[in-house]
Each structure stands twice: as C-alpha cells, then as structure tokens.
C-alpha cells in the first residue's frame, strides 16, 4: 500500500515538474518571438538617407527627376551634380514644397518596402508627405518602433553667383505599418 502511494507521488511530481519546465520554455521562447527587430528598420532609414545623399541627379534614371526628365525640362533642376538630398533641399530653400514632395516621392518610391511608412524632413519641416493622412499619423503614433537617420545638407543655389543655401538638418523617419 505504501509503495503504491509513493508511485503516485513521484508520477505527480514528475508531471508537475514537466509542466513547470514546458511553461518556462514556452514563455522564454515567446518573449524572443515578440522582441522587435530594430536592425532592419534602422538599416532602412540609413539606406534611404544614404541613397538620397549619395545618388546624383546625373546618375538617376527617372523620367520625372533625372536628366532630360520633366523637372529638367521645366528648368526646376539645373545642376546634374546635385545629390537627390541637395536637390530636395534646394526646392525647400527656394520655397517649392510641392515640387520637393513630388520629387522625393518619385525618387524613393521603389526604395522602401511597402510594409513600411516613411517621412522626409528638412530643418524640422516635413517635405514628404507634405500633408500626412490621418491613417499615416495614426500609424506613426501607434508604432512600437520608429527610427530616424539624420544628415546635414547644403548646396549652391545659383551657379552664376555661387550663392549657398543651408546648412539644413535632413531627417528620415521610418516605421512598420
């Protein structure tokens, strides 16, 4: 009788121990799965800013913003040596926010995966999107991870006079939808 009771006791003890162990492993594993992945978003924000600051107008194959494109023909872009960030800054400096917004949208549309949202700011003024939608604002406010990259930018506004604009603080925000 005593031996039988001992058997139940050890079986029950082993089952309880197993439950505790499994629960512990499940909790630990699930906490790993839920941890946010900051690296990709951070790389994306750096990538977008580096793309804008390292790519020159002359290197861009874009029917809107490249050499011979719409803005070039309209005389809005005159210096093919400008980087995309400098060009956006020049539009901001010359008070052309609509052109700046469309320009950024055109050059960056294929750079960022669709599950992310992003903003481009110049000197604490939002250039893209110029007027954020309610959905955009809600998404930004509700995101668990919003990352930013910053750079200084300035350039020559008029080649004839060599007048300079800036330096401005260019900033990119990226988050997951």
């Amino acid at each position, binding site marked *: 009788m005593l031996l039988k009771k001992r058997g139940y006791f050890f079986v029950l003890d082993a089952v309880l121990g197993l439950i505790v162990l499994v629960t512990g492993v499940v909790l*630990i594993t699930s906490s790993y799965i839920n941890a946010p992945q900051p690296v990709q978003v951070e790389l994306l924000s750096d990538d977008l800013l580096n793309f804008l600051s390292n790519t020159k107008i002359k290197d861009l194959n874009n029917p809107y913003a490249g050499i011979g494109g719409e803005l070039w023909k309209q005389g809005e872009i005159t210096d093919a040596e400008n980087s995309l960030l400098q060009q956006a800054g020049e539009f901001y400096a010359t008070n052309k926010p609509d052109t700046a917004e469309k320009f950024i949208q055109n050059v960056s549309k294929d750079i960022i995966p669709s599950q992310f949202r992003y903003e481009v700011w110049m000197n604490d003024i939002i250039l893209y999107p110029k007027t954020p939608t309610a959905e955009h604002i809600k998404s930004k406010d509700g995101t668990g991870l919003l990352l930013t*990259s910053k750079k200084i930018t300035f350039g020559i506004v008029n080649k004839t006079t060599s007048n*300079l604009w800036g330096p401005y603080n260019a900033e990119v925000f990226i988050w997951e939808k």
Partner: protein
Amino acid sequence: MGKMRLKNKGIFFTFIAITIMTLFVIVFTPQAEISVQKDMQATGARISSIDDYVDDLETRYFETVLRATTYKAILSLIYYMNSTGSFIPDIDSAFSEVMLKGTINNVPIDSITNKKIMDNNTLTNWSSRITEAAKDTLNVNTTIKITNVTVFQTKPWNIDSSLTINFTVQSNVAEWRKTSAITATISLEGLHDPYYLVNTNKAYTNRIKKSSVEFNQWNIAKTREHLRNGTYVYWQSPEAPSFLMRFTNTMTNSSCCGIESLVNPNMISPSDQRESYVDYLFWTHKFQNNCAQLYNITGLWDEFKYFKMDINHIVKYNITAQDAVKTC
C-alpha cells in the same frame, strides 16, 4: 526513521529543481540579452552616423564651400581691381585673406567694391555654420582650423583652389582627429578679364569666353569673329599669361594655361596705335618700336580699322598676305 529519510530526499529534489530553474532563468533571461544588444546597436549606429559626417565633411561639405567661396573671392578681387584701378601685388595672399576674412589689407573688400559678395560668405563663416548645424543635428562638437588656402591653375579654362584643414569631431562615444587637403575647381568662363579693366580704367571690359575654333581651322573670317566676340584662345606652347597672372600684371608665358584675346580698336582711344593688338602684347608695348614685324590687317579694316598684328600671330591665325600689309 523511514519517514525522516523520505523527507530528506524531498528537500534534496526540491533543491535540485530550484537550482535548475534558477540556472534556466539566468541563462535565458531575454531582457538582459536584448538590452546589451540594444546598447551595442545604438553605439554602433551613432559611431556610423558620425563617421559618415566626418567623411562628408572631408569630401563634400568643404568641397562645396570651397567651390562657392573661390568663385566669390575671385569675383570680389576683379571688382576690387575695377574699383581701385590697380593690379594686385600678390594674388595668393590677397586670395587667402579674402577667402578667410573677407578683407583685403584688413579692409572689408565689400566696402571697397560696394557689392555684397563676401559678407557672411567667407570660409570662416561657413565653418561656423557647419559646426553649429552638426551640433544641432548630430550632437557633436566640431573644431575646424583652416591652415592654408591657395589658388592656382593647371588648365587654361579653370581655376583650382586648395584648402588644408585640421578638424576634430567629438561625441560622447568617440573622437575623430583629421588633417585634410581639399581642392575645388571653377570655370573661368563669364568672369571679367581684370587686365582689360585696369589698363583701360574700366572703359573696356571683356568676359572670358573660350573660342570654339580648332587650332588648324583659323583664317581671316574666323579671326574677324574672334575679334568681334572678344573670345579667348589657348595655343599649344603658349606665350600668353594665364588668367591669374592677369591679376598681377605678370605678362610672361604660362606653359599650362596661357590664354589670349584680341583688342578691338573700336573700343580704345586712340584706335590707331603702333602695337600688336594681341592683348598681352598691346599693353606691354612689345612692338611699339619694332614696326618691321608689325602688320596692318587690312582684311579686317572694314569693321576693325587700324587693327594690327605681329608676324608670329599672323602665322598662328593663318592670315594671308592679301589681308596683311607691313606697317613700315
């Protein structure tokens, strides 16, 4: 006795279970690991972004500032010569002073030229602006010391400037110390030739514009156009001075960069002078007492009366005997 043994075994197993669980918790606590990772990522990202800034400072920011201020300094020096009517004794020191302080002989150059060109646009002004912007944007302290600025030419149609800077960038995670030599190139085209301004007391201005005629394509018609448009030409093995030498009235040859234009007799008084009307020969009076080598270019006298050239240039411009007559 038997009960006592069992109780002891229970405590032993419980102790082992607690020890194993504690080890599990310590080893696999996610919070601690992510926190370390986050710290490392944050430091890495910060170092990377400041490193990009240091790189941009060397390769982009100062190159852009140098290019813009070089153009402004050269333009200011031309206006200065126009205002004072005199040549500059030392172009390098004058250029350096204008670039760094916006002054010439310690007087603000804008006050002499009556043009607002260098005001708030010196290298020193822009160094301060970059420093402030870096502090606001990246929270780093940048110290920039400009040690040397020079101007020179290596090609006939460009001006090069060179800048040597020592800079330090300090952040809460690291510090960068560097010495950099930066060069920038601007085009001469469109700038006024100071040699004309000084020699004619502002009466005759000529802007630098490159002639499109190839060296073996010259003839009387092309020479007429060249004279009419006031264009400049660069000959292989030139005897002419460079653009920068025109600031100091140094009318010797520049092997890399000598350029010349033709003086329009209709723009000077008197129009008829016993000189070769090639600019650097005209005002240095090289052929004033050497009429044997001087020719009236009669083929152009219908439009440019009294225009003359020395024999070397008649050959260079491929002017034939029917269009040139000896002056004596």
